[in-house]
């Protein structure tokens, strides 16, 4: 151990430099991971919070279902007759509005039936009581909307009275607000510029939210009722931007996981080649192969663990700094998992050079090249 530490000290400049590279890679992985989760949450947290197992869309909507799908009230009635299934309508529309205190906000209006399983619990104020009322996500409260405010939907003139605040929920980076299905239909189907809501709005919804027992025959119901049912998690892909963001962030992470072992492997490779004379001398002085391998592992572990720990700290610090401004979420478990992956990948890179270390030839001490 003493010798391993001597070597670390002798090459401290190089090890420090390498530690910094590991630190930056680890921090980058952590930050990207934080943004992946954060952006994902920002896109689908309102869907994740839906206490439903499945969503039934109209079959013609193949993508962007929440925007495209329209399911009529008769289909809802059909679903409500099916055994092993609880069904309630859901409307989803992104819009914007202005409060009477001049806060301008984007709003993902979720139309739900009062008293249904989708009707959200509130942390402050009153639950949804009837048409014209609005229960907002905590995020909107942070943007300056308060209980008692009246929020007017832009260009439609529909006035919504804020009655309660529920937990954080957003959809497509827009904070959610919950209204009755009738109010939602008014928002969805009123022509912009019309002074009063048109009478006889279509009795349609974006989707039907289902709570299905595992025995329920969903395919059979789809066939008879003319819907396309997917699990709620599969429906995330229908949220705007979700798939694209995920692919981008995941591929960045993937490449970072590739880069980590390559960089560390290249460093230890070059270092081991440079160090062949020293390794040969150590062998000539009687150090066993096992001992030199042990030293190399200890040194690699020191660099990699030091680097990833510092990288984890840096990623967390960045998270704390930007977390309020941009969607960033790096819970302890995710941080630990990503850092462990970086450390393992980096150690694997260092392991590539072990053969060279073991094969250092003490006989080169005889050679004229020295």
């Amino acid at each position, binding site marked *: 151990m003493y010798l391993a530490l*001597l070597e670390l000290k*002798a090459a401290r400049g190089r090890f420090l430099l390498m530690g910094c590279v590991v630190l930056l890679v680890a921090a980058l992985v952590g930050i990207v991971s934080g943004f992946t989760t954060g952006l994902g949450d920002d896109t689908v947290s309102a869907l994740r919070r839906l206490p439903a197992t499945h969503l039934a869309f109209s079959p013609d909507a193949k993508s962007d279902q929440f925007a495209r799908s329209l399911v009529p009230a008769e289909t809802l009635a059909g679903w409500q007759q099916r055994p092993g299934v609880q069904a309630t309508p859901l409307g989803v529309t992104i819009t914007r509005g202005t409060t009477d205190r001049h806060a301008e906000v984007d709003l993902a209006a979720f139309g739900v039936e009062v008293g249904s399983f989708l009707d959200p619990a509130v942390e402050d104020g009153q639950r949804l009581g009837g048409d014209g009322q609005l229960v907002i996500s905590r995020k909107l409260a942070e943007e300056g909307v308060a209980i008692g405010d009246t929020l007017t939907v832009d260009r439609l003139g529909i006035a919504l009275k804020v009655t309660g605040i529920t937990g954080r929920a957003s959809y497509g980076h827009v904070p959610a607000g919950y209204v009755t299905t009738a109010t939602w239909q008014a928002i969805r189907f009123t022509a912009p510029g019309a002074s009063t809501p048109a009478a006889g709005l279509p009795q349609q919804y974006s989707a039907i939210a289902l709570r299905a027992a595992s025995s329920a025959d969903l395919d059979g119901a789809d066939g008879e009722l003319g819907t396309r049912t997917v699990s709620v998690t599969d429906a995330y892909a229908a949220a705007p931007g979700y798939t694209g963001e995920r692919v981008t962030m995941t591929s960045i992470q993937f490449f970072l996981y590739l880069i980590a072992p390559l960089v560390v492997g290249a460093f230890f490779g070059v270092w081991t080649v440079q160090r062949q004379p020293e390794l040969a001398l150590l062998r000539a002085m*009687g150090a066993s192969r096992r001992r030199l391998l042990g030293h190399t592992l200890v040194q690699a572990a020191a660099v990699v663990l030091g680097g990833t720990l510092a990288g984890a700290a840096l990623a967390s610090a960045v998270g704390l700094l930007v977390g309020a401004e941009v969607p960033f979420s790096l819970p302890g478990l995710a941080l630990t998992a990503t850092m462990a992956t970086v450390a393992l990948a980096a150690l694997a890179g260092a392991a590539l050079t072990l053969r060279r270390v073991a094969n250092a030839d*003490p006989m080169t001490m*005889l050679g004229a090249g020295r």
Partner: protein
Amino acid sequence: MTSLTLRQVSVSLGHGDARTPVLRGVSAACRPGELTALVGPSGSGKSTLLAVAGALLRPDSGQVLLGDTDLAQLGDGGRAKARRERIGYMFQSGNLLGGLTTVEQLLAAASIAGRPARRLRAAAETALGDVGLGHRLRHRADQLSGGERQRVALARALFLEPQLLLIDEPTAAVDRDQAGALTDLIARTARARGCVALVATHDPVVVDAATEVISM
């Protein structure tokens, strides 16, 4: 006390076309407590003989007896163990580890030999004083002259009191006075500890001080 005996040692070096017979049936005996000089023209195989005696190189045939142990019969691990526990070796060149101070060069050898390196610092400083480097304890290899580097290597070879001292051209890079002093140090050490000292050299100063001379 342990003596060194070589019997009919043959060594060829290199591969393919470059394969050269270097030692052909060499026999020699070195007594403990004495300085044995190994002389011969450049390229005659002095360093190769030291490598065989130092368990670095396994001869193609013959015996290399250090006490009762035939080093030629040992495997890789056994030879490494013999090197770290029984042999002090000053190579012809390239002796020092980069980035370490002179004291640490000696402590590294102690660490390899499984000795408590941290507690041997004072002893290492004394050993460096013995080769006239008491004023260079904090210098690194790249801050030393060629002669100073070889003296650090000599101090390291002597440091752990090995049974067998193998020293390759100790006086090649030092002045007359230094050469005399170093030769004297080696001879005295061999006498005091009763160890075998085999010194490859071209230097008449060393040859004069030797009790035995082996010619290649």
